[in-house]
């Protein structure tokens, strides 16, 4: 008998199309291909569904039929590399940038980046918040790993909001936008539009520069109080 590794390789190849392996049979051998198609369909369908759950706004923007065709192409080029599917999809935004059929939707990769950042924030580690009276101006702050700032040349934040389930998709804004992604203490992960200077302020903190340096850019109070209120300035050690 062929070793199991060869059998599974043949099986895997046939999941992508072509003839089914000669060793795959059924009680009625004439039906083997129709039965094998269940596996083909399970693999393709479940991965498309998983990608759609991770990028629901991208899916809504292009529609389910188009999304599924695009997802099939993405899955072929960038299949999951681990059984932990929440870690799969970082390559989706760059893939969209290079995918000619969506070249007419230049904001789509940035919407995908927002969705990817939200997933990362949702699963980010639990850290202990730093009490406000322990803030030091001359030390780098440890921001919670859910805190991310995104820059878009497009109104990606407004597009994301306009395409939430209860919204009609209509857009009132235009132009470049900045997004703050963070996980709040109730585990919600909102997408918040930031001014360019507030975005730069948090970027500088994320780069590990002390508060005193970031405060040169803008009045630190609004962003600092938001970060403190949501417990996003942290002590070093993790909870658990």
């Amino acid at each position, binding site marked *: 008998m062929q070793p199991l590794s060869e059998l599974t390789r043949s099986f895997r190849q046939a999941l992508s199309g072509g003839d089914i392996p000669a*060793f795959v*049979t059924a009680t009625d051998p004439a039906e083997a291909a*129709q039965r094998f198609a269940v596996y083909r369909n399970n693999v393709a369908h479940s991965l498309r569904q998983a990608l759609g759950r991770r990028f629901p706004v991208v899916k809504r923007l292009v529609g389910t039929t188009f999304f599924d065709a695009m997802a099939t192409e993405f899955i072929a080029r960038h299949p999951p590399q*681990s059984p932990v*599917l929440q870690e799969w999809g970082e390559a989706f935004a760059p893939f969209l940038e290079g995918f000619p059929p969506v070249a007419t939707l230049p904001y789509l990769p940035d919407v995908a980046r927002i969705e990817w950042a939200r997933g990362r924030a949702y699963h980010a580690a*639990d850290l202990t918040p730093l009490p406000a009276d322990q803030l030091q101006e001359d030390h780098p702050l440890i921001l919670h790993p859910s805190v991310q700032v995104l820059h878009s040349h497009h109104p990606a934040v407004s597009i994301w909001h306009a395409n939430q389930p209860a919204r009609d998709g209509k857009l009132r804004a235009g132009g470049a936008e900045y997004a703050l992604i963070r996980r709040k203490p109730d585990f919600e992960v909102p997408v918040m539009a930031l001014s360019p200077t507030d975005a730069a302020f948090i970027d500088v903190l994320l780069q590990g520069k002390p508060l005193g340096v970031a405060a040169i850019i803008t009045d630190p109070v609004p962003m600092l109080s938001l970060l403190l209120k949501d417990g996003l300035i942290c002590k070093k050690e993790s909870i658990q």
Partner: protein
Amino acid sequence: MPLPSSAGLGFKAQHFQAIRDTQPRLGFFEVHAENYLGDGGAPHAMLTALRRDYAISIHGVGLSIGGPTLDKAHLARVRALCDRYDPDSFSEHLAWSSHGAEYLNDLLPLPYTAATLQQICDHVDQVQDALGRRLLLENPSTYVIFEQSEIPETEFMDQIAQRTGCGLLLDVNNVFVSCVNHRMDPLNYLNAFPLRHVGEIHLGGHDEEELPSGPLLIDAHGSEVADPVWALYAEVLDRAGPLPSLVEWDNDVPEWSVLLSEAQRAEALLSDRTRHAAAE
């Protein structure tokens, strides 16, 4: 502590609030290991809260025990999860789901031969050694047959249990699906199945398609448990006595009350048997 011999449900995050508000009496909750391997956040907060009130079963779908190579990196992460939550049971599948590093997100079949039996036993040994706990291995639902297979599935699983000391998870829906698909009598499968090794039962819904030769059932976990599967479950309980029994519903997940009524249906069958056992 082993799982209690009563009905449990697969936990879905959208039901968390309903569970907290109503505190239903349930034997246990089961979660898929792979959904709890992130660093933190809501999944861990919910599982930590559930763990305080209920027995917990962790059910893996990604170790690829039935493939040529066990995913060692993934095993280390599953071990950390089990160390953190100390579940009352850990189970996995007689199936493969990864090809090299590529994860296929389905439970794929394998041929049953002397050589694959040895390989799977090695994998089960490695998993049990790494986790430091006994594994329950679940029978698959299958749609095709391998020409190479020379050992019946029931004997294959019996041999794995005997050689490795692992327990078995009997998915009654999978028994029904596979037997209908391969034109076998599910009762013959049960007659041959080593029920003494069974530590947990799974129940779930399936879809039905039609082939020229007859029905093709698909293990879809997206609907109520079918009547013939309930009947087969009652037959298992008659033969094996009460066992921890999980209702799985993973796709098109209904509202909490629908899921709970499925668990209550299983619990009613279980308590019938418990009463009879007490009366004898």
